[in-house]
């Protein structure tokens, strides 16, 4: 089957405008007859459900958490990008588009990224109208800051809690639609199967996680807004419940999976402290605005950081990348940290960490503040105090979080950080309309693959989730449903619902009946270790081939030896987790296969066999300027389809941040 990305004709800057002016519409009376299912209530899901509810569609939302407001978008810290050019520093739709395609190492689809940049400004307007309390300047206007991989200030933020504020905004819009009767909301429900009738997505099977009962729900269309799959690595910055299950079930029902190996390893996370570790905590990229990253110049230096004089420190990002310094993109910063630690320059007890130091910023801000108060010759203590106040205003909650976790005061000693799995650029393959290869089945936000190529820039995930939900799907869904207005709701007694439910029930019963001796958690940890060691920050053909075999063996062991306590028909978190880990055990294999196939390095995907003399990622544009979209053909059997990426506007070059 040839992949049709359905990119509209015409000039890049006119494609979305012309699409919007020519797509089919559904009249208000008909919208009331059309039912839409939304899986996941993060930024993409909540914004889509609220917008579609406002338009008059009958919407049902599902989330596994106890409330839509808990979705993991809430944890995003630093900010959201938008091409507003409020700072008059040369930003534009084109520049945001350019930075995003370049940041993604030329592996994203031009038309999608341009549209994203185009609607970014509307997102900020919409959020402010909803009451999102973005940071402001004294004049009452919105404030901006910088993020990695760009040279303008286009990031809007609400302290270190931007994701929370945006999600609460979308959640409130969603709850308003619930109150108006346009949306029905199901919390503590997990999607376990897509129902396909006559080749179209027509509903889902969900499990009520409180009672354990299976339920059938019909929809004229199904939207998957279920997030990313970073938890395949066990340790990641994702929430404990974040999972691939909804996307994976869709994949097994015919939706192709795009670039599954594209994983973002975030450079600034709190390092692992021991085997008990259950998750990793991010320290926002915004900290790199003011923090300087360094390691000692001497290998194995055991002195305390404050005892190491400046001339004996290696500010390796500033040294290697003078143009962008500490604000290089995430993939570059992560690899540089790994390189230093692997070479024996790491710090902390594990030697797997580097310093993120705010001393210079505190001093600089302190002097500015003292100057504002007319004190032009302040003593060191005054400077420190005033400087700390400024840093606290900007990043206070992050500093507190760091101190709670590590017991160290980052105002006094530099933070220790190390890269950790954070985001997955890969996801369900979608066309320009966000539709997967299954008609009527859509994927929005992190669940799809489309906008970030091989590396996502900071503050762009929030932008994409809300762009998809508020401004893209309201148009593209109508274009599909306009042909569906004569389709009456299909009763859930239909044989396709019967079969899908039976399938789900069998899988759950099989799993419960194994009654083995090893916990779900233990399998998840073992999978995570394979993935991190062999499909993590650096990958090679030998390791990936080994990983594929190891994962297959682990999966077999899971299905013969997992122990799940409790019953099916009750609140049973171990059973919920078992289903998710079972799916990760299948996805992990596909990720390794994809990483093995893509023998180039690009963005976050670093194949050791393909690097420049300086150790930078070396792309193979002739062979791999494409999306690898995998079709599920049965156990361990995936067929590769290619979508060639054509660049009409951008010129492919070796990325340089020097």
């Amino acid at each position: 089957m040839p992949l049709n990305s359905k990119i509209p004709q015409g000039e890049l800057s006119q494609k979305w405008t012309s699409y919007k002016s020519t797509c089919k519409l559904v009249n208000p009376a008909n919208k009331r007859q059309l039912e839409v299912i939304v899986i996941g209530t993060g930024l993409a899901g909540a914004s889509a459900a609220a917008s579609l509810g406002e338009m008059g569609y009958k919407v049902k939302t599902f989330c596994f958490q106890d409330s839509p407001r808990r979705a993991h978008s809430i944890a995003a810290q630093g900010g959201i990008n938008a091409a507003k050019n409020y700072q008059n520093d040369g930003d534009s739709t084109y520049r945001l588009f350019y930075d995003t395609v370049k940041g993604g190492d030329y592996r994203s689809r031009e038309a999608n990224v341009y549209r994203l940049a185009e609607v970014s400004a509307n997102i900020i307007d919409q959020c402010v109208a909803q009451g999102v309390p973005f940071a402001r300047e004294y004049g009452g206007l919105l404030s901006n800051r910088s993020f990695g991989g760009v040279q303008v200030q286009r990031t809007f933020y609400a302290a270190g809690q931007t994701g929370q504020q945006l999600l609460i905004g979308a959640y409130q819009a969603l709850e308003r639609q619930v109150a108006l009767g346009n949306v029905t909301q199901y919390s503590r429900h997990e999607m376990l199967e897509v129902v396909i009738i006559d080749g179209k997505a027509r509903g889902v099977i969900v499990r009520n996680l409180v009672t354990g009962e299976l339920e059938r729900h019909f929809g004229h269309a199904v939207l998957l807004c279920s997030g990313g799959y970073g938890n395949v690595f066990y340790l990641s910055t994702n929430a404990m419940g974040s999972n691939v299950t909804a996307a994976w079930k869709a994949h097994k029902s015919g939706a192709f999976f795009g670039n599954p190996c594209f994983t973002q390893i975030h450079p600034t996370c709190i390092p692992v402290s021991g085997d008990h570790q259950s998750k990793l905590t991010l320290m926002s990229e915004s900290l790199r605005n003011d923090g300087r990253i360094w390691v000692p110049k001497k290998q194995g230096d055991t002195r305390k950081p404050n005892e190491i004089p400046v001339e004996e420190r290696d500010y390796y990002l500033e040294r290697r990348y003078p143009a962008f310094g500490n604000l290089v993109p995430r993939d570059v910063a992560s690899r540089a940290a790994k390189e230093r630690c692997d070479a024996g320059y790491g710090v902390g007890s594990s030697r797997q960490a580097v310093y993120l130091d705010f001393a210079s910023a505190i001093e600089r801000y302190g002097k500015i503040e003292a100057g504002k108060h007319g004190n032009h010759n302040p003593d060191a203590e005054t400077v420190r105090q005033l400087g700390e106040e400024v840093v606290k205003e900007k990043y206070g909650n992050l500093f507190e979080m760091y101190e709670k976790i590590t017991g160290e005061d980052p105002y006094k000693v530099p933070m220790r950080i190390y890269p950790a799995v954070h985001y997955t650029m890969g996801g369900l393959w979608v066309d320009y309309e966000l539709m997967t290869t299954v008609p009527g089945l859509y994927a929005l936000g992190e669940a799809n693959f489309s906008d970030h190529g091989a590396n996502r820039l900071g503050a762009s995930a929030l932008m994409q989730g809300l762009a998809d939900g508020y401004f893209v799907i309201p148009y593209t869904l109508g274009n599909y449903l306009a042909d569906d207005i004569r389709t009456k709701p299909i009763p859930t007694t239909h044989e396709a619902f019967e079969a899908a439910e039976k399938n789900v029930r069998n899988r759950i019963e099989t799993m419960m009946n194994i009654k083995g001796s090893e916990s779900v958690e233990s399998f998840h940890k073992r999978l995570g270790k394979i993935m991190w060691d062999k499909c993590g920050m650096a990958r090679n053909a030998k390791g990936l081939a080994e990983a594929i075999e190891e994962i297959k063996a682990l999966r077999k062991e899971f299905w013969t030896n997992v122990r799940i306590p409790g019953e099916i028909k009750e609140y049973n978190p171990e059973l919920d987790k078992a289903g998710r880990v079972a799916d990760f055990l299948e996805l992990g294999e596909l990720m390794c296969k994809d990483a093995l196939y893509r023998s180039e390095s690009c963005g976050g995907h670093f194949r050791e066999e393909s690097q420049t003399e300086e150790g930078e990622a070396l792309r193979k544009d002739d062979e791999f300027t494409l999306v690898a979209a995998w079709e599920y053909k049965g156990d361990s059997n995936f067929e590769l389809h290619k979508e060639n990426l054509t660049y009409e506007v951008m010129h492919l070059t070796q990325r340089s941040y020097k």
Partner: protein
Amino acid sequence: MEHYSMNLTLKVWKQKNTQSKGHFETFQVKNISSEMSFLEMFDVLNEQLIAEGKEPIAFDHDCREGICGMCSMYINGRAHGPWHHTTTCQLHMREYKDGDTIVVEPWRANAFPVIKDLVVDRQAFDRIIQAGGYISANTGNAVDANSIPIEKHKADEAFAAAACIGCGACVAACPNASAMLFLSAKASHLSLLPQGDPERKIRAVNMVEQMDKEGFGSCSNIGLCEASCPKGISLENIARLNREYLGAVFGEGGDNA
């Protein structure tokens, strides 16, 4: 910082489901590292229980970085435990010493029925938001974000109120199980902003009415809600809501807070 390991006694609330009667059960955990989070200590206990062929303890948790609001343990008589401005997931074991006994209960409130063990149903909070905790601004209606300047201190105050994570600690800590801190934080967040001003009165009235319907108690200004709030939501929000509510009910304008 010196790290150490400890053995602990845990007395944990066990309850099969909403209908059944609960009870405390005592567990021993060994070799807990002072570097662990409180929930990681529970992970260790649960793995131990599964290995022994027993049922693990059900508890709510998700982001484990203090922002999603899902975790909800009542620890030694305090919502989210002893640390100031801290959720259960961010409480770390260096707080405890070898040999300590820790008592862990679910949030207790009529409006938050227990689902299992330490897990409670907080959908009442969603319904309070549905009653008016929003600004009616459909997608696509917005004017340019900088067209309405907002004084920085107002924006900061709105943000401080909007920092609420909806965990319900305020309700759990309150002897009356009142939801006033939660409700007033939302009302304040929205009515402090010019965008939220047009609906301020109806919002206050409808949200309070819904709170009463859900079976939350009345506020008697005790202040334990503020003391237990992991995000430092201030009691001033309650005062602001009271002014707003009285103004709305008795037809006075209510000030601009």
